[in-house]
């Protein structure tokens, strides 16, 4: 699958309170949460984000709370993919589980500016900066995680497993 979008760039340790402030956790649908995505650190995000846009972050993206509302909010905002130098553990699991594509690639983060356009090929982990022509290669997912992604997330994967068991 090829993704293409304009880049929103943030720094290290973008925490889940920044992605979706806890005061909105009395809601749980992607559409509701998307209306407040990133608002405490970047008010322009919600106003200007376009379907397909790509969020680029530094180290430890998604640190803090376990709230699945964070990747849900990004998905609801129709962000196509998150590229970061590294992801916090729970955010990483959550993103895979709900089918929000994420890629770990420090070089791509350093080689990308806000507002530029990235082209991402998920299967190969290839990231191309359309503005500069630079090409980067993300860390490959382990086979088990590829199975999860292919199945469409953890629920679909588990459903298949449960069916096989029967």
């Amino acid at each position, binding site marked *: 699958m090829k993704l293409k979008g304009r880049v929103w760039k943030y720094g290290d*340790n973008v*925490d889940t*309170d*920044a992605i979706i*402030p*806890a*005061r909105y*956790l*009395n*809601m*749980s649908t992607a559409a509701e949460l998307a209306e407040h995505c990133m608002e*405490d*650190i970047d008010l322009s995000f919600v106003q200007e984000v376009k379907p397909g846009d790509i969020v680029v972050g530094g*180290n*430890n993206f998604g*640190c*803090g*709370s*376990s*709230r*699945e*509302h964070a990747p*849900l909010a990004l998905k609801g905002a129709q962000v196509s993919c998150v590229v970061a130098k*590294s992801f*916090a*553990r*729970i955010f990483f*699991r*959550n993103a895979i*589980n*709900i089918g929000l594509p994420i890629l770990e690639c420090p070089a791509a983060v350093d080689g990308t500016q806000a507002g530029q356009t990235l082209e991402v090929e998920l299967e190969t982990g290839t990231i191309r900066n359309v503005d500069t022509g630079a090409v980067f290669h993300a860390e490959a997912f*382990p086979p*088990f995680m590829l199975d999860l992604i292919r199945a469409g*997330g*953890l*629920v679909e994967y*588990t*459903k298949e497993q*449960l069916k096989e068991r029967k």
Partner: protein
Amino acid sequence: MGETMSEKILSKHAGQKLKAGQLAQIPVDLVLANDITAPISLREFKRLGVEKVFDPEKVVLVPDHFAPNKDIKSAEQCKQMREFARSQELAHYFEVGRMGIEHALLPEQGLVRPGEVVVGADSHTCTYGALGAFATGMGSTDIAVAMATGQIWMKVPQTIKFVYKGRLPKWVGGKDLILHTIGDIGVEGALYMAMEFTGEAVGQLSVDGRLTMSNMAIEAGGKAGLFNVDDKTVQYLKGRTDQPYTIYRSDPDAAYARVIEYDVTKLEPQVAFPHLPSNARPLSQVGQVPIDQAVIGSCTNGRLEDLEVAAMLLNGRQVARDVRCIIIPATQQIYLQAVRNGWAEIFVQAGAVLSTPTCGPCLGGHMGILAAGERCVSTTNRNFVGRMGHPQSEVYLAGPAVAAASAVLGRIGGPDEL
């Protein structure tokens, strides 16, 4: 090469020898969710097409975050969870009035035992490592699958061993040790790893103090924060659980990713400045920081020992005129004990608020939200932008001694200044 505690516990559960780095399906002993994470779990549970949870004795639901219900939407979420608990006949659903903050409540109720694997839809599930269990936080979908199947995929983590040498100085507790540690290794210093807390100094900590340290393992990116079981742990478990449990210890030749030693002899109480828990400074280097609010509570520091410290310092003193001091016992049992010990009267006489158990202000939910420009010293666990309210407010993390002393002083300071 020997094994770490984490490797042993996960191997035992998986029924195969596992080493750090391996992925495996791990059967779990307890699955937890709360009023903000459960609604998504229940939605995904339904999508799985499973009728019943894997074991109604092993799924725990606690309405603690926005309960007692702070608004209509929160009430709807709690209602959803309550109805699920009823229809599934869950043994451990805790209604308001019996509810406490989950990570204080579960150990108190004897629901977590050494050697067990616990997963919860809350990042601070790592708290139970203080009892020698392997406990870790996950998202709602993971927890839905664990509720349905009784197992979940996990990567066996590498372990960093921390050795705390020396005797703890006065007013230095578990919170100070963990803030100092996070200040040293950073908020991603233990990313994906288990943290093992050892040494003479942590042996001096009560189980309450250890729960505080394990609680904040996640603030260094950790997957779990474990302690060895000792006499104090065994004493703590007595009368809380009659279930048998297994004690696991890391082998002396276990393969650690790193071993980090600290001499705590001269450690001061710590304060983490906005906006990361790793911005820890010793109290003597804090300077003049006036405060508008002091919060003593949360899954990190709302336990009996924390309230005891606050009562000791507030006894016969007054909260500064310009400060709101909010004290939140983490469970009903702690609340009752605070009443019986006369602490409730001390708090109210001092001009502090004594709240029913709730996560409330810690995550900017209710019971003490900050306005723009306001500053709070808090015994909670995170000081991210907007964590306790307005994005332009500030949270300074500290232990209960500094928080209580600061409430009296009207600025961040320690008990020795009272």
